[in-house]
């Protein structure tokens, strides 16, 4: 735990500081470049100029060390699941996960009797926002990121829980 985390009373000063911290967190959601299937194409589209994810402060990073958000875009097989878990573990806190598309949510079309596909990425890592769709349109992913920003704003950092 951090030096000042979770230690202060719930008064106007510290809640304001908390809001400021949350605001800076939600405005710089750097996501990890991570795509395993067709959802990755939509993810690229979302990051590209037409939908422009940069205006939310979300830019992609090529390494987990610099990223706050993991967008699991695509089918996760059992072979891949170990790697996904390790990548998630290697991200620094605070970290968030968006499960993008049916495959990452539940296994999607591979749900019934697939020997290879992980039935939902929430079996291995905690997921904050689920974005449905196969694959979701960029608008859906943007809505998912806005929902995550709302979620971040509710979090308490310095104030006692």
């Amino acid at each position, binding site marked *: *735990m951090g030096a000042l985390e979770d230690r202060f009373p719930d008064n106007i000063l510290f809640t304001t500081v908390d809001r400021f911290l949350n605001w800076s967190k939600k405005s710089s959601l750097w996501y990890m470049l991570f795509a395993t299937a067709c959802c990755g194409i939509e993810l690229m589209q979302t990051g590209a100029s037409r939908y422009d994810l940069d205006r939310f402060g979300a830019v992609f990073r090529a390494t987990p060390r610099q990223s706050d958000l993991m967008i699991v875009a695509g089918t996760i097989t059992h072979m891949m699941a*170990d*790697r996904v878990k390790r990548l998630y*573990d*290697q*991200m*620094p806190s605070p970290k968030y996960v968006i499960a993008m598309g049916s495959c990452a949510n539940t296994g999607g079309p591979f749900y019934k009797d697939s020997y290879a596909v992980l039935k939902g990425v929430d079996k291995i890592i905690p997921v904050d926002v689920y974005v449905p769709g196969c694959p979701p349109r960029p608008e859906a992913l943007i809505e998912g990121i806005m929902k995550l920003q709302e979620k971040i704003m509710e979090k308490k950092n310095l104030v006692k829980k």
Partner: protein
Amino acid sequence: MMFNFSNVFVFLAMGTVFVAVTLFLGRLIRPADPNVIKMSNYECGEEPIGHSWITFNVRFYVIALIFVIFDVEVVFLVPWAVVFRSMGWIAFWDMLIFIVVLLVGFAYVWEMGDLDWIEYEEGEEEE
């Protein structure tokens, strides 16, 4: 006119203080929960094999240095290309001499075998 060097000092001090305060604040408020997997080497999700502090072949540095030399050459070439028309033939001959000098160096490096990945001993034949 004398340049007022106290300006530079103020810039230096402000820069240092700003960076130090930011890093210190970050240290205070960020969550810190290191664990074994998080501290391990990043290998694109694969399990890392070995240590990251291994010794690299010294030949990488030779290649890198030669690369840097020719990279710097391009830094000279680009502004030269911009003013080439207005300066006329003198600029052409200037740059030609410069490139020839570099090429001589390149030929020397090539001949001495520093570009070969496997270095051959004296007297040993290249296959």
